[in-house]
């Protein structure tokens, strides 16, 4: 019964979305306030209906309702409750429902909190947002309906893929989707502005919080996914340049670019048409990501559904939205006149360079991801494009970005003098250089990767500190000024510092990781790096829905035991699948990562040990970037924007 209600709510939501798509747009065109006002209640109703539908599906998973095909294929009665809940979106149909729920959520948020938008713009934004909802609701209802019943329900389900039975699944996809779909807001704003033919500072101010929020969610989602892969897949990789990872990374890069170019629109009324283009492309890449995951076009560890029919449907959605928006863009972009004038050397220019590097880096990832397909279709060459390519072709852009970032952010708007921007940074630069040099001297004959990464990290972090100190000016009262610094400035400093921390972490991990593979006998200690490990015991343990071979390994340094690690090898009988559960001793300087393998013929067990320096910096840096975004979002400017507009138009002169 609840399932039917959920199904019905979904169909109803589709109807509401259709109304929300057509009526306000018509009203905005005709200037009829009554028709435009349909948008808000419709957005709210659409969200509530989809939420009901999603709740119904979750209920079916929680109660293990095996009369639903989807529950049978992805759940099992013995599965722990957390994974029953997160299993709702651990499959193609459910994750699409989550996707469209978030589309509707953002639409409803724009309706609830968009009170300060001009009514016409708001109507158009909500209408475009509803169009996205219509497309994906149709996709769900016609090709991927989660509410299909079984003819004869089985006694139990086929269980969720064991790799997905992890707290990571509970958080990684929702955050990622909040990010992907959050970009739809920027898209809707861009299309509405194109229809309107007007982009001004106010538009930049409205679109920025949405983009910022999307970027924060995307950052958290990607970082969680990377961390999950790191501890779950059993060899400690954190990024594989897998097509699906790239699919989430490309919108992230473009959202970062959009974030910065929208600042130029807001503050200086320049770069308008580029910003609109970026907004369209950022969401376009989100759709491409969806297409890659769902079509099975590119082989990937993430692929959900390998169904050509679904692929074609999403390709059509991609074509209509991106293509349509780009056509609109080509017709209207010339109407967007830039106002601000600035010198060749200025904050504006620095932000243009930022956009250039991010956009081209995104392009490199895109070409690398699609190249195997292109080569197979047009060149008749079956080839792979893997991590070595991306590491070589992508990294230089990030190095360049890291190098110019502190200089660019020290430059003033309009006109800058290069020496005045560089001068305060001199100690930071020298110190960073010294740190890089020290690392190079100490590592004895390894590559440049580690030292360069450490240099960039230190340069970014210290450059940020110098930037904040510059804002405080000279003379007394610094502390007071520090307290008064706008949150946006704190956000900027935190996020830029976070980028540095992440860069240093990635370089440190990739350059200085040590690994060891051996047969360990119980009770016989062995050395890896400066650590001594001893396999104490191996035992069979029974989990709620798996069997585990659990080892007990003590980790010691200089004779003192630091911790006891319990790596596991699990077997999930229902899915007939083994997984490895690494045991990790975390700290800021390094992770000790231990994996247990098979029993060996001559006695003993295979054990892999990795010492991974600075790994946690990667995720701490990501957390800082996200925190920076949140700080910036909480800036007074965004909170009071609504009130500020209501002031009388003529401000008395002082």
């Amino acid at each position, binding site marked *: 019964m609840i399932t039917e209600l959920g199904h019905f709510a979904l169909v109803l939501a589709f109807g509401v979305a259709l109304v929300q798509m057509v009526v306000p747009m018509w009203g905005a065109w005709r200037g009829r306030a009554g028709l435009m006002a349909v948008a808000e209640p419709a957005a709210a109703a659409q969200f509530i209906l989809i939420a009901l539908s999603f709740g119904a599906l979750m209920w079916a998973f929680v109660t293990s309702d095996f009369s639903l095909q989807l529950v049978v294929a992805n759940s099992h009665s013995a599965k722990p409750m957390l994974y029953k809940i997160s299993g709702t979106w651990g499959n193609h149909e459910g994750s699409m429902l989550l996707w469209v729920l978030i589309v509707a959520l953002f639409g409803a948020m724009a309706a609830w909190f968009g009170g300060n938008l001009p009514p016409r713009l708001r109507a158009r934004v909500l209408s475009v947002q509803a169009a996205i909802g219509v497309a994906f609701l149709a996709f769900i209802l016609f090709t991927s309906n989660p509410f299909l019943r079984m003819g004869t329900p089985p006694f139990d389900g086929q269980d969720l893929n064991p790799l997905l039975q992890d707290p990571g699944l509970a958080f990684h996809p929702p955050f990622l989707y909040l990010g992907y779909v959050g970009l739809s807001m920027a898209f809707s704003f861009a299309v509405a502005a194109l229809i309107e033919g007007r982009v001004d500072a106010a538009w930049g101010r409205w679109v920025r919080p949405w983009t910022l929020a999307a970027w924060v969610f995307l950052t958290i989602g990607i970082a969680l996914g990377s961390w999950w892969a790191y501890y779950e897949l059993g060899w400690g990789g954190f990024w594989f340049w897998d*097509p699906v990872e790239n699919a989430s990374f490309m919108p992230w890069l473009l959202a970062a670019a959009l974030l910065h170019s929208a600042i130029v629109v807001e503050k200086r009324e320049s770069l308008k048409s580029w910003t609109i283009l970026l907004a369209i492309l950022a969401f376009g890449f989100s759709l491409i990501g969806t297409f890659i995951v769902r079509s099975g076009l590119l082989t990937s560890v993430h692929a959900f559904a390998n169904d050509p029919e679904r692929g074609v449907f999403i390709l059509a959605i991609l074509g209509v939205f991106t293509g349509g928006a780009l056509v609109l863009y080509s017709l209207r972009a010339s109407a967007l006149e830039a106002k*601000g004038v600035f010198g060749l050397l200025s904050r504006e220019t620095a932000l243009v*360079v930022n956009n250039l590097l991010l956009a081209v880096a995104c392009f490199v990832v895109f*070409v690398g991801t699609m190249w195997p397909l292109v080569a197979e279709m047009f060149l008749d060459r079956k080839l792979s*494009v893997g991590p070595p390519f991306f590491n070589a072709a992508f990294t230089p852009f990030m190095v360049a970005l890291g190098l110019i970032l502190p200089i660019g952010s020290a430059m003033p708007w309009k006109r800058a003098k290069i020496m005045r921007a560089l001068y305060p940074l001199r100690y930071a630069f020298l110190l960073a250089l010294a740190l890089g040099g020290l690392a190079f001297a100490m590592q004895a004959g390894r590559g440049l990767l580690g030292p360069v990464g450490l240099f960039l990290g230190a340069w970014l972090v210290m450059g940020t500190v110098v930037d904040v100190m510059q804002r405080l000016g000279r003379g007394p009262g610094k502390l007071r000024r520090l307290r008064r610094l706008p949150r946006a400035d704190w956000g900027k400093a935190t996020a830029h510092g976070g980028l540095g921390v992440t860069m240093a972490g990635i370089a440190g991990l990739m350059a200085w990781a040590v690994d060891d593979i051996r047969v360990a006998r119980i009770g016989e200690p062995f050395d890896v790096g400066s650590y001594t490990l001893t396999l104490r015991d191996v035992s069979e343990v029974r989990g709620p829905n798996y069997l585990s071979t659990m080892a007990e390994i003590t980790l010691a340094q200089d004779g003192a035991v630091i911790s006891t690690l319990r790596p596991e090898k699990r077997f999930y009988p229902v899915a007939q699948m*083994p997984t490895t559960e690494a045991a990790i001793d975390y700290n800021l300087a390094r992770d000790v990562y231990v994996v247990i393998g098979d029993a060996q013929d001559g006695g003993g067990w295979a054990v892999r040990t990795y010492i991974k320096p600075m790994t946690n910096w990667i995720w701490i840096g990501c957390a800082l970037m996200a925190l920076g975004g949140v700080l910036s979002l909480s800036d007074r400017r965004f909170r009071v924007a609504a009130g500020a507009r209501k002031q009388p138009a003529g401000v008395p002169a002082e």
Partner: protein
Amino acid sequence: MKRLLLILTLLASPLWAVQPDEVLDDPALEARARELSQGLRCLVCRNESIDESNASLARDLRILLRERLVAGDSDAEAVDFIVDRYGEYVLLNPQATGANWLLWGAGPLMLLLAGGLGVIYLRGRARSKTPSEAPLSAEEEARLRDILDR
């Protein structure tokens, strides 16, 4: 039942990424093998190198690669040996031959193109005069004087 499951566990247990018995005695040779195998794709997996993969084919390739290195092949010879048998598809690092230069050149070319456009735009911005910089109208002059004199 429990025993049966345990047997199943052992039967289905993964062939693990690099196994201890594969590791070569010569650490220098082993380091080379690890380095090379990170650039070779496991053909039956989804985007994993043979160094990371648990598949038995990956194990065979790892052993084959090590045999070649022990036999005295250079890095390039050993990789060529595998490419000859399994095709270009095994290379995770695509060769810069034929049309592949487009792949490798895409980034630098795009940077040049976009950089050129960017410079044109920036120069335009630096030179253009906007309405705000146009001289004040008589009306505005009067208002300005009014404000300043107040």
